[in-house]
């Protein structure tokens, strides 16, 4: 039986889908079989980020309606054949599936795949309820902004109530320079409020935007980058390895900065 992990945040635009795509891809590169489930019915994006948009024939809804088999709806990635995507329907809304149906799909997928990663829509309504129904683990994605952290806090509370106990945190879009200048919440600040174990820190990186627009998750690029490293580290941690967190401050921790901090 594979692990069912939901990637969620509460607030929109913090990078849930980007994280899902990259983590899925990195896990697949690591030799794991991965099924990504898009739970964002009506506003699906995961297929775009993976560059699989034009290969979607059936969606989860057709599987549930019995119009096709589950295997037919799964879109296999050309680059990483261990990765499949179960797309969401674009022409419906979140009320067209029930938590029970999502459970059915996820449980069917765990039989064949090591990881089933569910990309949760923003918000805490029906779409959220659907996405977390089957999950036994959750990854909270947040950015170092008070609004995102507040929403993440709410979502963690909801997850706890729904007995998703294994909750981990990814802090996305950290800008070390701004943190140094005290203009942005630091990792410690975010952790202090949310008090859930940290799974990873991802620096703000323009390359992610480029990769997203190309439909080619960053972890596939040959070029080395901090954010790619961050994703790979997260995957290692998901696999149970102890990996040090990236020291994003290293480049900014100059003698001058230290002196300035000393006098603060």
């Amino acid at each position: 039986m594979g692990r069912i992990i939901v990637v969620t945040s509460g607030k929109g635009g913090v990078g849930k889908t980007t994280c899902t795509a990259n983590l899925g891809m990195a896990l697949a590169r690591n030799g794991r079989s991965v099924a990504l489930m898009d739970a964002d019915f009506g506003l699906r994006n995961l297929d775009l980020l993976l560059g699989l948009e034009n290969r979607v024939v059936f969606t989860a809804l057709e599987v549930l309606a019995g119009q096709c088999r589950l295997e037919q709806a799964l879109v296999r990635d050309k680059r990483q054949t261990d990765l499949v995507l179960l797309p969401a329907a674009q022409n419906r809304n979140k009320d067209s599936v029930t938590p029970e149906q999502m459970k059915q799909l996820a449980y069917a997928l765990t039989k064949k795949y090591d990881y089933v990663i569910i990309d949760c829509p923003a918000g805490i309504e029906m779409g959220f309820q659907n996405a977390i129904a089957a999950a036994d683990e959750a990854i909270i994605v947040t950015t170092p902004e008070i609004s995102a952290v507040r929403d993440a806090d709410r979502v963690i509370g909801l997850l706890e109530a729904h007995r998703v106990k294994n909750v981990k945190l990814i802090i996305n879009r950290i800008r070390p320079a701004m943190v140094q200048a005290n203009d942005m919440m630091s990792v410690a600040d975010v952790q202090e409020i949310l008090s859930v174990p940290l799974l990873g820190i991802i620096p703000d990186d323009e390359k992610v935007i480029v990769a997203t627009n190309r439909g080619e998750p960053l972890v596939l690029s040959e070029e080395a980058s901090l954010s790619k490293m961050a994703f790979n580290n997260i995957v290692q941690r998901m696999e149970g390895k102890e990996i040090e967190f990236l020291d994003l401050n290293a480049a900014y921790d100059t003698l001058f900065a230290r002196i300035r901090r000393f006098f603060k």
Partner: protein
Amino acid sequence: MILSQSLIMQPNLAPQEAAPAEQSNQSGHIFFKADQGLIYLHLPPNKAMSTDWHQLWEQLLHRLAASQKLWPPNTVAYLVANDRLLDHRQLEQLDAALSEANLQLKRVFTSRRQTAIAAVTAGYSVDQQSPTLPLASTPVATLPSAPIPIPTMVEPLYLQTTLRSGGEVRHPGSVIIIGDVNPGSTIVADGSILVWGRLRGIAHAGASGDRNGQIMALQMEPTQLRIADQVARAPAKAPTQFYPEVAYIGFDGIRITRASEFAKQKVRLEWMFDNVYKHHSVATRLPIE
């Protein structure tokens, strides 16, 4: 199994019989009450604010998660449903949630016929009358000859949890929270509030008007403090160092004092507070809306 079939077949209870049970739980919140090895789960009446089953369900799950360690395995639970309409599926859901939290649902008290029937079909003992509840405000009231009850405090609510954004705890007594109270969450207690952790949300002590209510926290950084009819917010500039602190109503509104000082102060006259002691921080007093 006690199946009071005759009661179920009766037409709906007269309103005056159903009324006393409702008084017990006007806050619109569920609460647990332990009595002689039994756990009573009180649901708010239909008229209360949060009537939506979904909200109620969320509340229940939160509450269960926070108080699971308080009772031994296989503790028998009684459900006091008041006039709330529960169907078979909802009872099943309740049962599943309770049994996950070591509670065995055995008996259902209700004043609704449909709920009673659903409960009987599901195999619970059913009491379709206002039960003599162990809650201070109710039992006397249910006995026709008893005098009008004097409102007394119920036992404190003890929760071991992080109260997160959107979380709300309401209790007709004092509330003790072991854990942090995050911004965006609310505690409303008729008694005092003790937070063994950081208090960053909204805390309202003495909500039914008791000016002796106190709010205590290891780290006091509230969004807002309310005691009885007074409102205060924390100073705009957060203190650099935190001590356990107590908020109470002084003679000019809500004041915050270090816990270590507070015990000493209690024995002195109120006017001396301002003259003799320098307070660590004084909250701004605001008129209540």
